[in-house]
């Protein structure tokens, strides 16, 4: 396998958790609620997967528990932001801090124990024989295929169905949506919860496909990178696909360069994804300074019926 093929495979495997988390963030923020808890949710998803998988040996059960636990946290986030109208920034931050504390606490006993298996790969038969593509495609696991399918589904949902129209209406102008008979609170609760569950699944994917044991703080800021990617992707699932794989490539390129025997200290190579996130966001801010950024209009403002504007 040549360098490019290896890099592509690594980019997709590192990019899948980012993609899932970004899609979760897009769903949440399209409904008008800021999602800054991604880091904590990913950690909770990862630790739940590890604990259940090691204890029960059942992968499906592990994934379902991860989704259930993070969905529950999503309900908490919606309760704070939608019902109590609390500060959405602080609520997300609380989620991150609580998630990293709780995951470190409950994950301590299983820290460093290898998982009984990784996520299964689809057997594609003939496709595997195709030279380069087959090599890449043959290595994709179930969650990667699921994330790809999800990109398509979410794209169609958001832009081509009446549900998506309702979602966008709630995110852009909840007052109008309310007048039109759309249940703003219900929609916000549903999408925040679904988004949180997806971010939890991203955490699960991280331990299954990427780092096959649990370690404290395992996500190392990838949840925050996903928060940046939501902006980078301009709240659009199709763009999210490219952005996530681009960052997946950045994430793995440092390691690849190191393998090639580069003289640059590894610490600087590890900085690449973090520094590039900032630079890319700065570039986007500069380029879009006079253009709409794609931000849902009412992102971060709680909706209060009967409030005069």
């Amino acid at each position, binding site marked *: 396998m040549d360098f490019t093929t290896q890099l592509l495979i690594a980019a997709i495997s590192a990019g899948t958790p980012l993609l899932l988390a970004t899609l979760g963030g897009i769903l949440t923020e399209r409904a008008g609620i800021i999602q800054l808890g991604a880091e904590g949710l990913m950690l909770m998803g990862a630790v739940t997967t590890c604990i259940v998988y090691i204890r029960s040996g059942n992968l499906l059960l592990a994934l379902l528990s991860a989704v259930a636990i993070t969905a529950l946290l999503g309900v908490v986030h919606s309760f704070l932001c939608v019902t109590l109208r609390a500060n959405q920034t602080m609520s997300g931050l609380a989620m991150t801090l*609580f998630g990293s504390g709780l995951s470190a606490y409950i994950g301590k006993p299983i820290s460093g124990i290898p998982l009984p298996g990784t996520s299964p790969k689809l057997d594609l038969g003939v496709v595997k024989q195709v030279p380069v593509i087959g090599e890449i495609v043959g290595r994709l696991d179930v969650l990667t295929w699921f994330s790809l399918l999800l990109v398509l589904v979410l794209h169609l949902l958001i832009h081509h169905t009446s549900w998506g129209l309702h979602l966008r209406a709630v995110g852009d102008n909840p007052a109008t949506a309310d007048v039109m008979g759309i249940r703003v609170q219900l929609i916000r609760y549903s999408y925040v919860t679904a988004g949180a569950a997806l971010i939890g699944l991203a955490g699960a994917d991280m331990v299954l496909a990427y780092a096959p044991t649990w370690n404290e703080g395992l996500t190392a800021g990838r949840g*925050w990178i996903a928060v940046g990617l939501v902006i980078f992707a301009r709240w659009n699932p199709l763009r999210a696909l490219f952005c996530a794989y681009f960052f997946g490539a950045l994430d793995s390129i440092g390691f690849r360069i190191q393998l090639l025997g580069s003289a640059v200290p590894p610490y600087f190579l590890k*900085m690449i994804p*973090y520094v590039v996130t*900032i630079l890319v966001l700065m570039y986007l*801010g500069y380029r879009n300074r006079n253009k709409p950024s794609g931000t849902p209009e009412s992102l971060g403002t709680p909706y209060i019926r*009967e409030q005069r504007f």
Partner: protein
Amino acid sequence: MSPKPGSDSVVLKPLPMRSGRWYSLRLEYDSSRTRSPWWTPVLSVILALLLCAGFIAANGMSPLVVYEKMLRGAFGTSYGFTETMVKAIPLLLCGLGIAVAYRISVWNIGAEGQLTVGAMAATAVTIYFPDLPSFWSIVLMLVFGTAAGALWGLMTAVPRTHFGVNELITSLMLNYVALLALDYVVFGPWKDPKGFNFPGSPVFTAAQSLPVLGSTRLHIGLVFGLVAVLLYYLMIRFTRWGYELRLIGANPTAARYAGIHLKKHIIIVMLISGGLAGIAGMAEVSGVTHKLMQGISPGYGYTAIIVAWLAKLNPLGLIVTSILFGGLIVGGYSVQTIGLPSSISEMLQGAILFFLIAGDMIHRFRIRRSA
């Protein structure tokens, strides 16, 4: 409460009572009630303790035993109490910096990185100017530490003001960059040649260490913290800058119409915020660890966010909350002796913040009986 003219207070009109129902309760939301009562922080701490008691019990331990152990470890002995105070110093300095920024809704979560570069810059002084007399060495370390922290803060402020980049993302990404840079220097160029190959800078000389109180580990950084609190309190109350800051915090739109330059203020608060965290980093290496190494901060920068929020960004309240959380960190270490991970204190911190932000809002709701 009737709506005040000009305010955006909301009183829901009572719905007509449905016939045949003997009750008619409704939840009333009043957004004009912005001052939360004193008991919400206390209540949120109690509720967080109860929630985490559940997790501890699920782990097969008695929550009462664990909490008693933590309390004893942090405040029960004079050694424990000075340790608590030692931990409170960086929390106070970082928390103060965070409070300054949050006052005008600049969400700096990069205190961890700002503290780290502060510590690195202070160590750079000891490495490149090893033979300075005590006074000048400390002063130079302080200046370098502050400047490095402020520069790190500036790197968060400028993308926000000139490129519209969310400061949360920038400041957090810079935390990871700072920690990797720390790894680089302690494994690479600044590694102690006599350190048996352990990562870390050479141990500071007495001239490069902050004075301590008697034979304890409590160092003069506490005075830095208290002076900073006093200065901040006075400047917020009595200067034009403080007035403008309060105005932006209270009503950003009004502040903009009054001709206050928001971008300038974002840059100033981030310089102060980073600078204070930088001082904390300098005090940590020079006063506590006496050398630069990995893990100089057990997440002070993140804990300080909760410290600041629990104090409701009030400088005097910060003194109380930073001692409380210093105790929480020390208590977290002391439960390790009975086989529990110290991350128990992180879990408690996160839970406290959760209940705190809910508590900030809950008093705005009232249950009323409809007429």
